[in-house]
């Protein structure tokens, strides 16, 4: 059976996700979808606006934290909910991607709790069955 793109990771105070993918590009996209699915039902989020993201970090783990934090920035500063992530390039230290979504509309969107931040506790990006696995815990 194929691995799901992401699963929810349980933690007493907070929540996290474990993402699986065949490529690093897909892994970063799945992790982002996992994080936003904790915050809203993504089925109802239209892909009306696009944000381009181009970031660098010193390693894969730091890159994952930066990528997800960058998306939280748009959530807080511009009230953007994203439901699709196209990662064009992901290396160990650089990521270029496009995130698609729309401004939050509490009447239309089914919202859950907000993610405050991406923690480094139990953070992991590692090879798995010829692909990759990422584990990340959020502060709720």
């Amino acid at each position, binding site marked *: 059976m194929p691995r799901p793109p992401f699963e929810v990771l349980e933690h007493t105070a907070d929540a996290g996700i474990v993402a699986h993918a065949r490529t690093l590009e897909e892994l970063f996209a799945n992790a982002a979808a996992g994080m936003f699915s904790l915050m809203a039902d993504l089925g109802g989020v239209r892909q009306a606006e696009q944000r381009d993201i181009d970031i660098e970090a010193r390693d894969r783990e730091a890159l994952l934290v930066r990528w997800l934090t960058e998306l939280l920035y748009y959530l807080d500063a511009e009230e953007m909910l994203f439901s699709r992530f196209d990662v064009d390039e992901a290396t160990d230290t650089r990521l270029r991607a496009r995130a698609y979504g729309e*401004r939050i509309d509490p009447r239309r969107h089914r919202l859950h709790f907000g993610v405050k*931040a991406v*923690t*480094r506790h139990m953070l992991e990006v590692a090879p798995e069955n010829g692909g990759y696995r990422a584990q990340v815990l959020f*502060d709720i």
Partner: protein
Amino acid sequence: MAASWKEILQKIDDWRWLLPKEYKAGMRVPGLIFASEEMLGVIGQDQALEQVANVAFLPGIVNYSMAMPDIHWGYGFPIGGVAAMRVEDGVVSPGGVGFDINCGTRVLRTNLTEEELRPHLKELVNQLFRDIPSGIGGHGLVKASMKEIDEVMVEGARWALAQGYAWPEDVESMESGGALKGANPDKVSQRAKQRGMPQLGTLGSGNHFLEIQVIDTVFDREKADAMGIQGPGQVLVFIHTGSRGLGHQTCTDYLEVMEEAAQKYKIELPDKQLACAPISSKEGQDYLGAMTAAANFAFCNRQLIAHWTRQAFERVLGRDARDDLGMHLVYDVAHNIAKIERHRLSGREMTLCVHRKGATRAFPPGHPDVPARYQRTGQPVLVPGDMGRYSYICTGTQQAMTETWGSTCHGAGRVQSRHAAKRMLQGVDIAQRLAERGIYVRAQNRGLLAEEASEAYKDVAQVVDVLHEAGIADRVTRMRPIGVIKG
């Protein structure tokens, strides 16, 4: 993980447990856990005690890595952890403060009784739900410019006072007067400011709340009196929120800085999330300046929410918030913060950086940092429980000052993860269940209420009892909720 914590911990008395330094190579001091034997069973179920041991690795830590009875598994530091580092050779760790810098609580008193308020309760809760932005994407009613955000970060609640969102006496009843000294907004990133800008005056989500509560028990009449609390049936307002995206981004930014700093200063860490730098280093000083700035933003945030709370009461009840309803601030206290404080250890005075991660300051009667009106009682400590049971107000003690750097618990502490709570309460309409008990709840998403239900939390009464018995905090009063707003 350890086979059985009960075999590792050494019982000191009914409320204190020692985690010996020998438990893990690298611990500089032992751990000290405040808990009853019964609570220890729950505490030992996840990684919280391992995290108490990990905090003991940090350079400059003095005496103990401490944990309050509401301790639970955090990220890096346990939530409910207290650790003090010597300023001369110790470190400061953003993880020891948390992402939600100066997450904290405040309580407003009123002259209202439950009986008087009941007929208006639904209307009032609905009004508060409309007026106080909550949940994901809730933007504040104050449109602050970038320049004003910088002012907020220096002046804290005093900025709100200057803008007409506070009463002059409000700022006298807050930890550090609602404005910590040493804030350096230049050390807060543009991104952090942009995240915080639309969120000034918003509640947020997760465990943040605004509750209308009623006094159900008074344990100490004299102390309650000093707080304007007369007795059972009196209505109070309890607010729990922090520094929103501004604080979250500031912590995120500095964890990155500290990860490099820890390597640069050759600090060995058992968990990346404990990243830190010497207090005296540039990285340490920059973080303290930024953290303090974010903390002041949080004081202002809670003040704005209190302002709109007063307005909502006025609107619904048609009575003046000050002269008629007497909606004075009892106190405002931080429970995610690091502060430079003077303390005594074995008769010697020293300057320490006290990290309180999910722990509240609890200064005793007579302490110079306690407001004049509480000089005889000790500093009020506001301890939220869960939305189905009760919350407490306590006061700080001399024992806390000598044993825990003037610190105590911050709440109930979770026992169930969000998903476990949701699974357990599947099909249960929490809002309906609370309504049957006279508690009216409004939330952005009713389905999420299960995650914040009583079953997800420890009984805060047990937490407070341990600290009362241990002499760390004195119980003053207990409140039960009648109206709840959840983000």
